């Protein structure tokens, strides 16, 4: 499977009369966006705004972040099984509006967190302080069920990102990168001397506000399976996950999965990257047993020498992570796991909820309990209800001048467990 990613660099975003991309600037017509979002009968109102890197803006609570992309010259489309027909993606050509993102916000339940600060201390911890963001604050009708509410806001983001992606059809890319993974047997013949590596990606799949969708299928109902890495780049995996802001994977993270990209960088020189195994993180322990058996079985079946395992979320998934690691190691396959830590504010507590000596190679996205001080911003997109009243009470506090002292766990993507950031933690 071969995919050409064609980056169109977006360096600015503005409102305009016509939605279009000109000179690296994304112009957005509010009306276009509004009518698209309001197609959904559940949505009562959408506030559309723009947040650029360096601006004194705070977006909260963030539900999802999506990168605008479009497939060109293809009969398949972005986000198959959800807004495009359910055909296998990952081949052909895809335009990427690099440097831009659609950010959805809105109160689904009262305890949502998720901060993106576009400047200041908080900006250092989230990748989305560096993107030109189109922000959609969605309000639904009062009596809506939480399940429908989550779905409406999720689809609003996907639809708008798709619409913006389509604006790039016909544009010449600024840079092009080709990613190719051959069918397994050919791949192995091509680089017979290189160690074979697969990527085991764990997907959040526990229930309401904790879901991930694969080709439109709720991930808690999948059994582990194999994807070509390029499928992820075309929106095969979508986030429906609204809890644990610091270590949830947004759709943007799935589209730009850094383990996939970094494995491709060494593919053919130091390693032979054969593919992605996806698995879930269910609540039912029997599901954990089955899924971890299957990841180990698939890794063995692929004949790999090593795997990277990435996690998503807090607590329960620690058990899946350790089970995957243990069972794959028991097959004689080397593992490295990527996780994050809840070691307490002083860093003195046991960071993980599960442990095993076989997990001897660990990469950490940092301690999510560590405090960070966020100065007030001139403008807030969304609402501060959670931060002021709830996150303050749970995980931090708010001073009179509006300065928030809060745990890193409130910041979107701060301790990401696919290894998206440079943040790590060490012993002192």
């Amino acid at each position, binding site marked *: 499977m071969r995919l050409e990613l064609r980056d169109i660099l977006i360096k600015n975003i503005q409102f305009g009369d016509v939605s279009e991309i000109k000179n690296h600037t994304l112009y957005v017509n509010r009306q276009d966006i509004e009518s698209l979002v309001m197609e959904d009968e559940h949505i009562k109102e959408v506030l559309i705004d723009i947040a650029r890197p360096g601006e004194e803006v705070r977006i909260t609570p963030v539900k999802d972040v999506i990168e605008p992309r479009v497939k060109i010259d293809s009969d398949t489309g972005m986000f198959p099984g959800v807004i495009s027909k359910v055909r296998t993606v990952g081949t052909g050509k895809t335009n990427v509006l690099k440097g831009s993102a659609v950010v959805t916000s809105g109160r689904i339940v009262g305890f949502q967190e998720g901060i993106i600060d576009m400047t200041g201390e908080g900006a250092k911890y989230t990748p989305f302080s560096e993107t030109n963001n189109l922000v959609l604050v969605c309000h639904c009708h009062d009596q809506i069920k939480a399940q429908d509410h989550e779905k409406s806001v999720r689809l609003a983001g996907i639809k708008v990102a798709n619409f913006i992606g389509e604006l790039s059809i016909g544009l010449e890319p600024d840079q092009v990168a080709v990613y190719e993974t051959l069918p397994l047997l050919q791949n192995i013949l091509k680089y017979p001397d290189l160690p074979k590596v697969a990527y085991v990606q764990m997907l959040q799949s526990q229930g309401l506000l904790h879901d991930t969708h694969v080709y439109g299928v709720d991930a808690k109902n999948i059994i582990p399976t194999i994807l070509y890495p390029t499928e992820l780049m075309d929106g095969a995996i979508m986030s429906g996950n609204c809890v644990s802001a610091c270590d949830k994977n947004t759709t943007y993270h799935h589209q730009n999965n850094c383990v996939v990209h970094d494995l491709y960088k060494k593919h053919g020189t130091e390693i032979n990257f054969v593919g992605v195994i996806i698995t879930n993180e269910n609540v039912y322990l029997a599901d954990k047993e089955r899924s971890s058996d299957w990841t180990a079985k698939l890794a063995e079946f692929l004949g790999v020498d090593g795997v990277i395992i990435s996690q998503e979320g807090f607590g329960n998934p620690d058990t899946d992570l350790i089970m995957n690691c243990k069972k794959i190691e028991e097959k004689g396959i080397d593992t490295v796991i990527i996780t994050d830590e809840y070691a307490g504010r002083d860093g003195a507590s046991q960071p993980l909820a599960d442990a095993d000596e076989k997990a*001897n190679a660990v990469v950490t996205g940092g301690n999510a309990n560590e405090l960070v001080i966020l100065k007030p911003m001139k403008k807030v997109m969304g609402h501060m209800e959670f931060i002021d009243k709830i996150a303050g009470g749970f995980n931090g506090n708010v001073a009179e001048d509006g300065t928030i002292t809060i745990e890193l766990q409130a910041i979107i993507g701060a301790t990401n467990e696919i290894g998206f950031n440079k943040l790590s933690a060490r012993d002192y």
Partner: protein
Amino acid sequence: MAKFKVVHYINQFYAGIGGEEKADHMPEAIKGAVGPGLAFQAAFGEQAEIVATIVCGDSFYNENMEKARETILGMVKQCSPDLFVAGPAFNAGRYGVACGDIASSVQNSLGVKALSGMYLENPGVDLYKKSIYLIETKNSAVDMRNAIKKMVSLGLKLLKSEEILTPQEEGYLKRGFRKNYFADKRGSHRAIDMLIQKMKKDPFTTEFAMPTFDRVNPNPAIKDMSQTKIAIVTSGGIVPKGNPDHIESSSASKYGKYDISKFRDLTDQDHETAHGGYDPTFANLDSDRVIPVDVLRDMEKEGRIGELFNFFYATTGNGTSVANAKAFAAEIAKDLISNDVQAVILTST
């Protein structure tokens, strides 16, 4: 610039007063630097001055902790120092505990920055590494020069409120705190580099070491207890009244082997605990509460166990180093086997 004032704590041995026979030496403040303090003073140079040295016997400190602490805190307060340095204690267990305890008390009660130095296996390490910086030393005074160099360098940084770098960079023992930092590469890149090293069997460094436990796989269950000879081994400090072997109340350097062939029941007339880490009242009243001799005698009589071995083994687990505990266990195990003991009841407190 005025020199920083430093107070140094050492034991009776390093003060040249004497060895174990002088370990009950009461706290004493001496003006200026003494013993290893002279080398500290040389290393501090013009930047800091050791204004006083406090000497205290190791036994005195460990057996009269509250009193020793209070007396010494008073002495330190009078000097109003900017820094308190204790030791280094290397692998000396009671000295390590004294250094750690007084240094962390000075820091907590007087707000004076404090540090010490010791060997990784010193029982003082686990007790005090979270409260104060402990420079890592080798296990004997052969390492004195090197230890002083690092302690002075870290001490000066504390005095000047400079940023304290990682344990590797500064030479202190890991304190058990996780702290965030920005690495050079993103996590996925670091993970792949680590995997490549692991697959090549090259050394690699995990970013988080899983907690390790010294796991012992249990032996198969005993089929017939009525034919089994059982012994008791305890870290609960039970000893014949009077503690004939002087087993230390903490950081034990020895264990005892005691005859119970004549006892059906332990009482406050004949047994007690030497343990200093828990309220001894109930153990002293009836030591069967820690080692169930009475119940085992009953079972012996009823034929439910073969026999109770004539001796029990005891030490205090309180602050005793893992290395010491392992050494005791190896000797005890050998003795048990040579006496045909088939099963052991281990009790702790």
